[in-house]
């Protein structure tokens, strides 16, 4: 059974990965032999300078999901390369490094540092974090998306993936801009901007006031975005948005995604990504499919 998928010249042995910001301390909690089975790992987004993150409370449970406003707490690119990257490299799974620059210059500098560090498979540009008080996200503007992807692409020795936001009028416009600028893949979607108010205090429950909604609550909307984008672009899609199990993941693959990332589910079931992988295998066996390419984009367009 062939589960392998390709982004640019990189082959991943299967289509299952984890969404940025949802996976950590593998060495302490996870059975290493099991983690090795994943197609790729995406660590939490790294910025140029270290960031302390937003004031607590940073998360709240919502119907079938959660809001988060962590604020990209991270050690900065130098700290990441020195302390965290070696731990992730030890796992022996291809790494997709999620990066975020607050300026184009920072995106380029982070890229250059990762060029020198090596030992990674691709860069994912976080153009779509809703929790950083930017007036507009890069991924809400096709011109800005084009500009940032273009600049990173010209400097990166790794394939470049653009991570897109759901808070847009037409996501296909943004995806096309990323593709035109040379993106090797797009990943979608990031969290939906969202909030919860405590009616007793009339205050937002999050320290950051607003946050990003994730989890199964957003899954059908995420699937719609993936389906829309898959019909318009040629480069591969990494899909995420509320995937809890193999059935959820298969919907995204059938809609046209080449890879699927398990995110919020990791917080509830640390084995979720492995169960997704196993479930995809079982599905293919049951449907007598030998190659994951027979699944990807196989949605039947007729209504009935």
């Amino acid at each position, binding site marked *: 059974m062939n589960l392998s998928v390709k982004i640019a010249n990189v082959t991943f042995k299967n289509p299952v990965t984890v969404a940025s910001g949802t*996976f950590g301390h593998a060495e302490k*909690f996870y059975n290493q032999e099991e983690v090795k089975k994943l197609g790729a790992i995406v660590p939490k987004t790294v910025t140029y300078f270290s960031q302390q993150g937003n004031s*607590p409370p*940073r998360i709240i449970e919502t119907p079938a999901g959660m809001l988060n406003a962590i604020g990209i707490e991270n050690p900065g690119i130098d700290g990441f390369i020195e302390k965290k990257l070696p731990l992730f490299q030890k796992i022996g799974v291809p790494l997709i490094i999620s990066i975020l620059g607050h300026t184009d210059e920072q995106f380029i500098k982070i890229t250059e540092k990762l060029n020198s560090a090596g030992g990674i498979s691709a860069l994912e540009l976080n153009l779509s974090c809703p929790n950083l008080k930017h007036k507009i996200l890069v991924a809400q503007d096709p011109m800005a998306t084009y500009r940032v992807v273009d600049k990173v692409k010209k400097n990166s020795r790794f394939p470049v993936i653009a991570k897109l936001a759901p808070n847009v009028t037409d996501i296909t416009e943004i995806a096309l801009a990323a593709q035109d600028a040379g993106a090797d893949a797009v990943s979608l979607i990031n969290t939906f901007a969202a909030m919860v108010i405590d009616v007793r205090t009339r205050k937002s429950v999050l320290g950051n006031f607003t946050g990003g909604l994730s989890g199964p609550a957003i899954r059908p909307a995420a699937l719609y975005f993936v389906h829309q984008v898959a019909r318009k672009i040629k480069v591969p899609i990494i899909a995420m948005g509320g995937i809890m199990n193999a059935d959820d993941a298969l919907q995204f693959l059938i809609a046209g995604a080449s890879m699927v990332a398990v995110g919020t589910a990791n*917080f509830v079931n*640390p084995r979720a990504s492995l169960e997704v992988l196993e479930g995809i295998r079982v599905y293919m066996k049951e449907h007598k499919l030998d190659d994951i390419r027979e699944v990807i984009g196989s949605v039947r367009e007729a209504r009935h």
Partner: protein
Amino acid sequence: MDKIQYTSKVVSNEKLCPRFYRLCIDAKPIVKRIQPGQFIHIRVAEGLEPFFRRPFSVYRAQNYIEILYEPIGLGTKILATKKKGDDIDILGPLGNKFSMPPAGTKQVVMIAGGIGVAPFLILSDILKKRKQYELVLLYGGRTGGHVCDMREFKKNGCKVFVATDDGSVGVKGRVPKLFSKINSDPRTTFIYTCGPNPMTAAVQEFVKTHKLRGEAACEEVMACGLGACLGCSIRTRSGYKTVCYDGPVFDLHEVIFEHSG
């Protein structure tokens, strides 16, 4: 993940006092590894409501894991329906642990508010074996219904003093009314505290004034429990720290107790 995730069996689930329940779980692979201050993270229902797991301090870890809870929210109300023999999905043990009192300590004072008393039974189980401390428990509850039978603490040799808001048990008022029981000697007194932020903030104030040493077990809304999401961070003097991974136990002087509304 198979290092920490277990489907275990409920052994018993009973009311300990009008407001608190004790859940007893058969989790042989981990029960002997649990240290005072650590917690287990329970998925109370298989579906999507409630969505998060719920973290509980371990109350005792002898033959079984015991936790103490008050059924007030969605998760704890579901927990209260668990019966003997039910499966229960737990992650654990998670988090750091209380340190042992420093050399020279004579009096150990555990200061608890409400359900925050939970980690102190397992702590006193360990401390009593050292046979060198005067163990004191200062406990504050909203009403008499929040005051458990303190026999297990007394069996461990703890001197127990209680304050309730309505005065129905012990002294009328809040925990600081019991601070006179503390020998405020920085060389020989060590403090542990766990409870709502206004209470732990009052303990911190007292400890600072008298230059005492101590530790606090902290709480925050938690998602993963594994230090991955960075959702349960609290403010400390050395920056944000996760309750689940860096904590839940912190140096009492380090924590900045916030949003204590």
